[in-house]
């Protein structure tokens, strides 16, 4: 056999070994339609995801002032004094924690959309599981191994990472500041993001320095490998260039605020021209089981410090973006794995809960509050939790659709695997706006008797369209859908048989095209 033939024979047998020595087949399964070129999320817009790790106490962040007396019954040891709450522009019923003055200013000036009681059906109380749910974008009985933004980026850049970086996309698809890449950014086939351990790592990239190593042979080799690793990072040049070219013009960045440090470098990279569409930053410590507030003053303490950091960091970032002239292409979103319990515990803290508010900010958001204040039960027990008003995937859907402008079919087929009703975060989606939704009377539900024993009559109002009536238990878990159908315009009634239910607090919810309303009910 000729050498050439021999080599051909051997390398033919070695196939399918290609692509950096990895078998092509390993990555088979990319849907054909993904290969179709797209341009949607490549619209230059940027999403900055801010993870509040540990489960943020939504009720002490966005406080339903009209529920104050019931809150006081449930959580007096952590509740903010009523006169310290910062009411939001245009309402006296909803206000921020007093540490959030900067964010209140953002809201009041129209830079923020607040979404009330975001969660998912059948809430899970495990940090890990609930974090996985939020990051993967799954239902609570669904176990996905990829993240919602990983899938979105995979949908937009189906060939990644082969031949990346390239002229069309020279920059990372997603950049996370933090140890270990978040599930959020993992695609079905590849990790779609680059994680850098901390902000210092980016400055080291710019300066070409690495961590110091001991003066030993091992230290010598380690330094060598670290330098190669830094140069090797496919995107190090892009990041270095953007960081050198970029700038920070904001003057409000606080010191000793790790979230602000992270957001500051994000602003710098965006202003330096980095085309990365997704950034992810985080701040931890929200798992406030004990000493959430100072024993002498509920407006200070651990949670207040965290909210100060979040509020100052976000507003400094927004200020910087405005000055840098990049505000119109940047929006930010906070999320946390769950809210906390309505009733506080004896350690001046709160235990794991369910739904909580989300904040989406930026110059392009449709400012205002989406949803209503939660109804706090008057006799809240340790088992009571908030029912969700909005599924968190409605927020995701809206961001993917309205911010990144990806088509509904792609979101449904490739990203969220389900259809969700968008929210008016960016635009007047569905011709609705938040004012209508908040308007009392248009969305109406109540029941008599309440409290009840074996049954109660539910009364609601139909606009002549589709109405859903749902029942949640006190854990915020959906028990049943009482009705889901088109009703003629006018007052409607339906009977709720409750003999099968244990005594306790429940929630009744109506969802119509005009909005939704949730009321607490009690079986005795």
């Amino acid at each position, binding site marked *: 056999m000729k050498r050439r033939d021999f080599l051909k024979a051997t390398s033919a047998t070695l196939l399918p070994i290609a692509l950096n*020595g990895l078998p092509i087949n390993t990555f088979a399964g990319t849907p054909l339609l993904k290969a179709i070129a797209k341009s949607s999320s490549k619209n230059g817009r940027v999403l900055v995801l801010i993870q509040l790790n540990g489960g943020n106490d939504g009720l002490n962040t966005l406080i339903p002032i009209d529920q104050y007396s019931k809150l006081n019954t449930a959580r007096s040891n952590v509740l903010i004094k009523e006169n310290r709450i910062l009411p939001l522009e245009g309402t006296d019923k909803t206000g921020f924690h007093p540490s959030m003055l900067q964010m209140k200013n953002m809201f009041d000036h129209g830079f923020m959309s607040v979404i009330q009681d975001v969660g998912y059906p059948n809430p899970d109380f495990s940090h890990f599981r609930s974090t996985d749910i939020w990051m993967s974008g799954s239902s609570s009985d669904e176990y996905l191994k990829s993240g919602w933004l990983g899938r979105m980026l995979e949908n937009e850049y189906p060939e990644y990472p082969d031949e990346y970086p390239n002229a069309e996309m020279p920059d990372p698809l997603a950049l996370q500041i933090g140890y270990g890449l978040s599930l959020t950014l993992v695609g079905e086939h590849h990790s779609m993001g680059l994680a850098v351990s901390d902000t210092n790592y980016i400055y080291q990239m710019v300066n070409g320095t690495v961590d110091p190593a001991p003066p030993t042979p091992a230290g010598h080799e380690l330094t060598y*490998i670290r330098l*190669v690793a830094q140069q090797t990072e496919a995107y190090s040049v892009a990041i270095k260039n953007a960081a050198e070219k970029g700038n920070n013009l904001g003057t409000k960045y606080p010191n000793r605020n790790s979230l602000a440090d992270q957001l500051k470098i994000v602003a710098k990279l965006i202003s330096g021209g980095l085309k990365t569409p997704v950034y992810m930053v985080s701040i931890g410590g929200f798992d406030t089981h004990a000493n959430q507030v100072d024993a002498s003053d509920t407006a200070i303490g651990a949670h207040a410090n965290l909210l100060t950091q979040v509020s100052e960091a976000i507003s400094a970032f927004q200020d910087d973006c405005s000055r840098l002239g990049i505000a119109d292409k940047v929006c930010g979103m906070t999320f946390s794995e769950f809210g906390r319990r309505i009733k506080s515990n004896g350690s001046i803290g709160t235990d794991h809960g369910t739904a909580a508010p989300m904040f989406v900010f930026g110059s392009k958001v449709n400012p205002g509050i989406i949803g209503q204040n939660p109804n706090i039960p008057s006799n809240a027990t340790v088992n009571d939790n908030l029912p969700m008003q909005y599924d968190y995937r409605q927020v995701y859907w809206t961001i993917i659709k309205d911010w990144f402008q990806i088509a509904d079919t792609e979101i449904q087929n490739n990203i969220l695997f389900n259809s969700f009703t968008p929210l008016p975060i960016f635009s007047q989606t569905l011709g609705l706006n938040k004012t209508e939704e908040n308007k009392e009377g248009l969305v109406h539900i109540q029941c008599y008797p309440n409290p009840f024993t074996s049954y109660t009559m539910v009364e609601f109002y139909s606009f002549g369209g589709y109405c859903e009536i749902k029942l949640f238990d006190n854990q915020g878990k959906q028990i049943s859908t009482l009705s889901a159908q088109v009703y003629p315009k006018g007052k409607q009634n339906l009977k709720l048989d409750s003999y099968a239910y244990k005594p306790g607090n429940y929630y009744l919810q109506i969802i119509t095209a005009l909005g939704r309303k949730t009321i607490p009910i009690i079986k005795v």
Partner: protein
Amino acid sequence: MNRRQFLNIQTQDKKKEKIVEIEPDLTQSINPYSNKKLPDGLEILSYSILPYNGNWDTKHVAHLLRRTTFGFRPSDLRNFKNKSLNDAVSAIIDFVDYTPAPPLNNYSSPSVIDPNIPLGQTWVNDSFTPPNLTAPRFLSFKSWATGQLINQECNIREKMTQFWHNHFAVEAEVVQDGRFLYKYNQFLRGQCLGNFKNMVKTISKDPSMLYYLNGYKNTKNAPDENYARELMELFTLGKGADSNYTEDDVKQAARVLTGWRINISTVESNFQPTLHDTQNKTFSGFFNNQTIVGRIGADGALEKDELIDMIFMHADVISKHLCRKLYRYFCYYNITEQTETNVIEPLAQFLVQSNWEIKPVIQKLLLSEHFYDINSKGCYIKNPFDFVVGFTKAFQTKFTTDLAKNYSSLLLVNSFTTSQGLNYFDPPSVAGWPAYHQSPQYHQIWINSDTLTKRKQLIEILLSSNGIATPTIDIKTDIVEFVSILENPSNPVELINESLEILYAIDISSTKKTELKSILLSGQSQDFYWTDLWQTYQQNKTTENKQMVYIRLYSLFQHLLSLPEYQLA
């Protein structure tokens, strides 16, 4: 392939040929960040090769295993922790010798027909390799040879076998015939802790070597100096300042070695007196002007060993050359003056005193103070097989037992290491891999922007819960299972510490450890969240519970194994 075809394959000097398609690109290996300044003057506390009698703890045990095997299982580490230093070293070198099962026919199919050897039987004893089976048997050999590393026992054997292959290098792609390669491989493995001088005598008539360095074409009328040169330059004397053989010595040695031929069917070498130069061969003053008297008839074969005995008069030069290579392979590439004086020289003298037996020398090195010096640890850059097998051993990666899939999976592993610069049994030249001889970069050659990226990508794929599963390949790693066999996996601190003992050769700061824990805890600050999750999984091993554990372990190990620290052994 008949004999004539076989002998006609190569007409020119094989070692000079470059095989662009498969060989690693050398320009990639010589990277822009190479060692500009050698770490001279770094603190080494002990250069003594006297027996180490200090503290003998997990770190020392792991160091021994890291340097003498391609990788070890957590149970190996636990097992060795119960041994004394002497017993541990003994277990590494006094292993029960056995012959591994030979490579098998994994290739028969409707399109590839082997007339003699059925599927699943070994082809190594076939009297002939038909042309259509050269490539399938070559690949079968490659898979099998890779399998020897993947399935290595916890002893020094495979590591030594690779050492000798790098020392007495042949290129499989030149030799081609799997039967020859198998024989060569078996020789290296069988003699891996044997007698060096005898190895030189045997390799000088090894059929693969005779073929690779043209020894079989070296005749009285057309002497070929190829082997004679490498015998001195690479295999024995080296090219140091104290190695002063002359060009004429190479010519004379080539004449001594004329007449050796290969029997294609028995895969044996034989001596043909009619092709041998029967004249006297006189060497230079470096060899005291010694003359090897030309012999007539079958006795001409004896001249080979006379030549080698003569070369070995320079025991000092040869032993130092070999000990430097051993040191670079097992310890560190940088040989300072102090290392030369205090380690290489006494070790070399000991090799000569031991009458060229390798085992006592390895034993002395592995028992020495210098070997366990704190600064000797963690400075060894893993070669691609240290990297891959290190992973598959530590995480107990499963390779399917299905013959065809097993062989193609092992071939895939070989393609991984090839893409990282080490194609086993195909070094770039007779000098072996540059990482073991190319000054000043040496081991750093393994790491460049291309190979480091590939190492990272490989880790991501090996860690994934699906492993590598195609119709022809099945390689699977269960990282949850890996963690299950640790001492206390429910405690995140202990889980990380024990994983580090197994995976890292150097200590990391407590800040780094906190980062690692933070990954395992998904950013939560309380350890018990992991403990709860782990215990829930232990009590109820559902797919869902396992996945929650897996997601966290994947992030942890993906991070841990991507850090530069993991490249060190």
